[in-house]
């Protein structure tokens, strides 16, 4: 006998994004138990303010990168250079804006180039680096991990070259809107995330792109034999991933109002890959879920924020993180789920 709710639950459980959602909910509930104020959202200076908003805002760069990386991973590739590209795009933007502190006290609210140009150029540079990866991988047949490792190393150098090893502080207020601004009470960066997500969903679910990416990721030979232009698809996946990293770079640099060639986006690649995998996309390529990756990024950020706000001592942080990652992945393992499902069935039968 099955009630409509359990039927509904079972239907939901089949969806890829179900388990990441459950995980996220559990993490949030845990927080609530620890800190009743966690969910409180107040209005401050005309916008929403609270831990949840922090999480969303802070996770924005990661969500965007995770989406780009999802496409790459779906083609059975990997891109570990995203962190370096984040640094590069931030560095380009900061140098283009330029500016210096006015000794009279106030900041010089000016930019050397129009903001739009700054954004377009930084994104174009980021995308170029993505295309560079794509070219090495799809046309020169290099292994993705090596090709992007080269950029991981070189890219940091390039970013530091641009900033000359300094942290470039940005004083131009309009630029801050990208990472700090609020629109309709919500962080502006969330609208960027939404836009990227909508664009990608449209591209991959309403056109054949999604099908082609999955086919290339699962069986490139068969895909080519069926007329799919595997190389072009792989190339553009990396290019797009670079673009996403570029967007994230702008958000990050705008958020901290400075560009740091060495530290911006450090280890982002690990977090982003983790986000994609927690979201339910396999590293072996093929089936992918963008919404899942976004949820994965949220899970990671929630975990980080939780660690800070619960007051875990820094020495223990990594152990906590390890345990949570471990538990989450066990929860998401098909094996365990099937076990749970059969248990459920037995109970229902009783």
């Amino acid at each position, binding site marked *: 006998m099955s009630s409509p709710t359990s039927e509904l639950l079972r239907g939901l459980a089949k969806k890829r994004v179900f388990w990441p959602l459950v995980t996220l909910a559990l993490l949030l509930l845990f927080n609530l138990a620890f800190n009743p104020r966690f969910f409180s959202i107040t209005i401050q200076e005309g916008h929403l303010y609270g831990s949840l908003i922090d999480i969303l805002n802070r996770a924005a760069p990661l969500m965007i990168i995770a989406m780009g990386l999802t496409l790459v991973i779906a083609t059975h590739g990997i891109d570990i250079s995203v962190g370096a590209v984040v640094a590069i795009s931030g560095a380009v933007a900061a140098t283009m804006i330029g500016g210096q502190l006015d000794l009279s006290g106030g900041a010089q609210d000016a930019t050397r180039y129009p903001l739009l140009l700054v954004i377009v150029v930084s994104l174009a540079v980021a995308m170029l680096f993505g295309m560079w990866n794509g070219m090495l991988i799809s046309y020169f047949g290099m292994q993705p991990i090596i090709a992007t490792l080269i950029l991981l190393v070189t890219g940091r150098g390039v970013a530091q070259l641009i900033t000359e090893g300094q942290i470039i502080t940005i004083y131009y207020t309009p630029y801050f809107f990208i990472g700090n601004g609020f629109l309709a009470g919500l962080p502006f960066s969330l609208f960027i995330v939404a836009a990227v997500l909508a664009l990608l969903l449209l591209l991959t679910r*309403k056109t*054949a792109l999604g099908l082609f990416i999955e*086919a290339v990721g699962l069986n490139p*030979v*068969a895909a*080519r034999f069926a*007329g799919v*232009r595997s190389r072009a698809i792989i190339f553009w996946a990396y290019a797009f991933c670079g673009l996403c990293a570029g967007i994230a770079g702008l958000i990050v640099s705008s958020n901290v109002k400075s560009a740091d060639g060495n530290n911006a986006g450090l280890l982002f690649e690990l977090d982003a890959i983790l986000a994609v995998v927690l979201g339910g996309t396999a590293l072996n390529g093929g089936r992918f879920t963008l919404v899942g990756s976004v949820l994965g990024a949220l899970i990671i950020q929630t975990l980080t924020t939780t660690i800070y706000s619960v007051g875990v001592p820094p020495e223990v942080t990594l152990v906590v993180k390890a345990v949570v990652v471990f538990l989450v992945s066990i929860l998401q393992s098909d094996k365990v789920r099937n076990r749970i499902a059969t248990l459920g069935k037995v109970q229902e039968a009783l």
Partner: protein
Amino acid sequence: MTEAVPVLEVKGISKRFSGVQALRGVDFRLLPGEVHAVMGQNGAGKSTLIKILTGVHRPDAGRILLQGSEIKPKSPSEARKLGISTVYQEVNLCPNLSVAENICLGHDPSEAFAIRWKQLNRKAEALLADLNIHIDVTAPLSTYSIAVQQVCAIARALSTQAKILILDEPTSSLAEDEVKMLLSVMRKLKAQGMAILFVTHFLDQIFEISDRITILRNGELVGEYPVAELSRMELVTRMVGREIAETGPSRAKGARLSPAEESARDEAYEGVEAPFLSAEGLGRRGSVQDVGLEVKRGKALGVGGLLGSGRTEIARLLFGIDRAEEGSIKIEGKSAQLSSPLKAIQHGIGFCPEDRKHEGIVGELSIRENMVLALQAKRGIFRTLSRKQQDELAEIYIKALGIKTPDAEKPISQLSGGNQQKVLLARWLATNPRMLILDEPTRGIDVAAKLEIMEKVMELCDKGMAILFISSEIEEVLCYSDRIAVMRDRRKVGEIEAGEADESTVFKIIAGGQA
């Protein structure tokens, strides 16, 4: 008739996959020293039965008895230790390992402490030699064609001292010669008392070698019969559940169409002088040399030849997978650059490759997605087929080709082998091609389905499609082609009208007789 004690006995086995009852209460027994054929249409449950016997799947119900005592194999390695040696339907070997390793790895005494490579290689060579294959066994398996790989899989199964040998469609890619060799090996083993479970869709082979036949239909047992008591007709009828003709009408003049229809067809293309595709002096280093072909609208050109004679390579050149280094290709009289499969598709060519698993299906994608892939690629990314169109397409072809599946969203890897092949055919039919290259299209397809498929193809051919038909079965080539190009040593050595030829004519050309 004295009944020996069965070595292997299966009682009331049932197995359900999501949405499909693959087996329902099936009984089966295997006597020592017999060759026991399991017959059934695509998706009847043969492979599932085998996978249960060898521990790949766990049955939902039922018991397996090995020499009277119950066993519950949990993995193929366990089954192997129990003395059950298996060749699975798709070639399930490791492409990156050498042929010798694929044959001997895991059970050879020469590996005990440190692998003695020389000994291992020699053993593999000897096993292959028994099957009349002489190749460099130190080369990776992937360098060989699917047929050779199949022989390797057989050699692997033979290399263990097993009580029971299970062969799931071992001959689907093999040419007559290798088949003969295999059958003689089977006879030898049988004489030594080994029990053999044999699955194939070739009726000739069944009647040549097997002692008894178990027939499955839709996962249920139809019955077990001594082979002598069953005529071919009866066998097919029991398998399919209705009467059908065993071989379709040949393409030979007058056999399919009435003379009037035939002349009407020929007239329709009279005005167009150029053949759909013509190739001249095609060649590529390490591949075929100096091949000239003409594939005409509304005609089927067969390609005959022995294993490795270069048939597949022609197909690859014509489909833009490999680029020809010499020679030229003309499509409808205009010279064409076929630099990629996509180009070929845009010219209206379709290609069913012989290596279904690696070159054909995208295993984890659904049936629908596999079907629309080529059409969608042809249309490009942005002229997307709506979900509704896709569903309709899938539905049409599932029905038209009789694909056995609960719905179109099932991953194609979960279909039975024959049904996968049908999906691939549907993929190409959906692109509405003007020329179709079929490389061993009937591989692993049951008699009834073969008829249906070829009937469908011939129908399209009559409507003006050009066909290039490659098959290891000369008989089939003769039957379904208008003209036949004969290959030997990677060269075309002759071309004949199918209607005027029989098998011996073809073999004569292969053997180096007149062109």
